[in-house]
């Protein structure tokens, strides 16, 4: 019964759209009182006073002639604004290549490199093995404390050595709540895969985000002296350790332990950063200090790299937090492979699961898109549609192509047959089909 009512209501909405289209387009115009371009331009810039605005809006609401002009003006203005923006960006970037800047900048870089190579290092120790360590800088810790939600801001267990902590904060709330990603930021060195459960989020692919979910095994991690565990693991290079794309963490939607098996093999084997303190300290250092200046440099770079990645990751994780925290996730989009699913998240993100929905990996095909519906005719092929004529297509579940829409309307549904063929439905109910990836569209019944 309820379903019938819903269908009837939907039918009426569709009918309303058509009726409005027909009736409003039929406005004959308001005679010879149409204002000139100076008024239209001033109205467009909101320069008219309140009385004039009300008077002319009344006219425009009944005059298709004026509205057509305003529509043209709006489109032309959009193009002009885009051109100005592009011009600004070009102008803004061109100074970078000005030799007057480059020459002194290069000199400063050379000087800095020489100083860096020759400066004395007092912290040298003869310890041979390269040990991954984490020593969160104070300021980062403070910041993370501020950002973290109260339940996540629990201090690090005091038993954990401040300078050698290889495990993530094993606060169960932090595991279950993606907000832990904020409190336990980015650059983390992973303990040996068999002992530690921290899967790291490393936003390596530019538009991919990932999210931390500590497996249940880590619950006891803080109580464990992880130092030895870590020292057993020789990390060849801190820099290398964080550039493993497959180390991208996953989102586990429901509270509760996630299986360590959800890591990809590459992740398990990859040397990655160890989580900072429970409060979120994040900077990691590779300590057993190499003898040569070159090695020191490498070590510094590794540290810098980790810090930078921690910042980027924090950004992505904050997005992921928003994604996970909201209740607006769309329904899951099935693919022919039962284990592979898609869904739409907020903020332009879409998510893909390869394990039947246990874990999700986010992608950002178009940050400005408000996606509404999707259809996945293949394991790696997916179409998404949204407001403002947005149609997106991926063939490899990684790269996204924006398909030119049949009209600039809000789309509410899509049904895809394969990578080339799909039918989209506009908000007013009209359907359009393509068989060549949007090169041409034909009205569909």
């Amino acid at each position, binding site marked *: 019964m309820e379903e019938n009512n819903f269908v*009837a209501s939907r*039918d*009426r*909405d*569709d*009918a*309303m*759209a*058509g*009726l*409005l*289209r*027909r*009736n*409003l*387009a*039929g406005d*004959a115009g308001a005679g010879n009182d149409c204002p*000139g*371009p*100076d008024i*239209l*331009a*001033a109205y*467009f810039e909101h*320069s008219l006073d309140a009385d004039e605005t*009300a008077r002319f*809006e009344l006219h425009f*609401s009944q005059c*298709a002639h004026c*509205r*057509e*002009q*305003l*529509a*043209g*003006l*709006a*489109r*032309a*203005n*959009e*193009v*002009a604004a885009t*051109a100005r923006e592009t011009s600004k960006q070009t102008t803004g970037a061109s100074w970078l290549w000005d030799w007057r800047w480059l020459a002194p900048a290069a000199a400063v870089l050379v000087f800095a490199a020489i100083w860096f190579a020759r400066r004395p290092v007092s912290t040298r120790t003869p310890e041979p093995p390269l040990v991954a360590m984490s020593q969160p800088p104070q300021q980062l810790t403070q910041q993370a404390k501020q950002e973290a939600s109260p339940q996540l801001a629990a201090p690090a267990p005091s038993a954990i050595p401040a300078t050698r902590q290889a495990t993530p904060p094993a606060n169960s709330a932090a595991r279950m709540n993606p907000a832990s990603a904020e409190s336990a930021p980015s650059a983390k060195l992973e303990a040996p895969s068999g002992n530690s459960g921290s899967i790291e989020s490393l936003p390596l692919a530019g538009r991919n985000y990932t999210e931390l979910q500590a497996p249940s095994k880590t619950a006891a991690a803080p109580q464990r002296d992880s130092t030895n565990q870590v020292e057993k693991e020789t990390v060849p290079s801190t820099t290398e350790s964080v550039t493993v794309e497959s180390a991208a963490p996953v989102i586990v939607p429901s509270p509760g332990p996630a299986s360590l098996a959800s890591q990809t093999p590459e992740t398990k084997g990859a040397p990655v950063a160890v989580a900072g303190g429970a409060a979120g300290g994040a900077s990691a250092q590779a300590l057993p200090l190499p003898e040569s200046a070159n090695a020191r440099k490498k070590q510094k770079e590794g540290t810098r790299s980790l810090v930078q990645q921690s910042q980027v990751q924090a950004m992505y994780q904050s997005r992921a937090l928003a994604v996970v925290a909201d209740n607006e996730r769309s329904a899951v989009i099935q693919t022919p492979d039962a284990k592979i699913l898609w869904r739409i998240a907020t903020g332009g993100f879409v998510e893909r699961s390869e394990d039947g929905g246990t874990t999700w990996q986010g992608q950002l095909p178009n940050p400005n898109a408000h996606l509404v519906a999707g259809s996945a005719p293949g394991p790696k092929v997916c179409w998404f549609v949204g407001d*403002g*004529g947005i149609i997106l297509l991926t063939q490899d579940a990684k790269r996204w192509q924006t398909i*030119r829409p049949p*009209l600039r*309307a*809000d789309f509410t549904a899509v049904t895809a047959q394969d990578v080339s063929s799909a039918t989209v439905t506009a908000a*007013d*109910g*009209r359907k359009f089909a393509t068989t060549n990836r*949007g*090169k*041409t*569209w*034909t*009205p569909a019944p």
Partner: protein
Amino acid sequence: MTPRPVATAPPAPAADFRFPRSLAGAVERCWQKAAAPAEWNLTRKQFEAALGRSVVHRFSSASASPEPKAIESYLESLHAGDLAFACACSAGSEAAWDGFVAQFRQDLYRAARAIAGDSSACELADSLYADLYGLRESEGRRKSLFDYFHGRSKLGTWLRAVLAQRHVDAIRRARKLEPLEDEAGREHPEVVASASPASHAAADPADPNRAKYLSLVQAALASALDSLEPRDRLRLAYYYADELTLAEIGRLFGEHEATVSRKLDRARRDLRHRIEAALRDGKKLSEAQIQLCFEYAREEWPFDLTLRLRPASVNPAQARRPGVVSSDD
């Protein structure tokens, strides 16, 4: 090579408006704000004349002569720099015209493409150039389109508005020249709107009440639309009739697109409830009959009268709407 204006051409005559002494300060401030470069050779008198035309144009519809305070406030709101620019171009200043070409030429062609599509863009922009330059002469003096710029908006926005107006006018003129059989429908859409259901009904003998139901729902909608606030009706028209995007509508109203979306949704729901109430309470239709009204209306609209009422190629986006379209992709 861009044609240059004839420097000897006299400026447009000043409107019959003399600023009272009490407004001398406001006029002076406008002149200072305009900061016209010396190479434009724009005189204060020419600029004052342009200001006078603007004031006359603004207050021409007022029943009583405007208060000096209102004029002063109006003068303060003007884009004095752009007005001086247009004034100098109209007066035939070579330097100003060169500056105009350098600053606006690309913008104009780009805007023309956005409005008229690639095929007609050059023609549209070129004709505007000619009128800005002032090829037509009236009473021995060159008449420039710049004389119609009153400084109420930025010069660039005004130019785009002129382009849009010319394009729409051209489309409507062309439409009037089309065969009479189409004319009836286009010039009197309500005739087609009401006739079409009947013809549809003739083709569908299953329900003899079909035409009646369609007429009822059509009338209820017209009544409901009339009762809407002009701004709400305008928002609906932008969206459904002119097919502007939410962002474009938001730009026109100074609203965020989410706000536009929300208000559109509310207006649409409100309309629907009013129609349902009118059919139920006014026409005493049952729920089943009301449902039929909507069903018939839904079946009816894909014949898309809009497309017949709309210019064939108002812009590229609209040109893509019907039938098979191409993509660059």
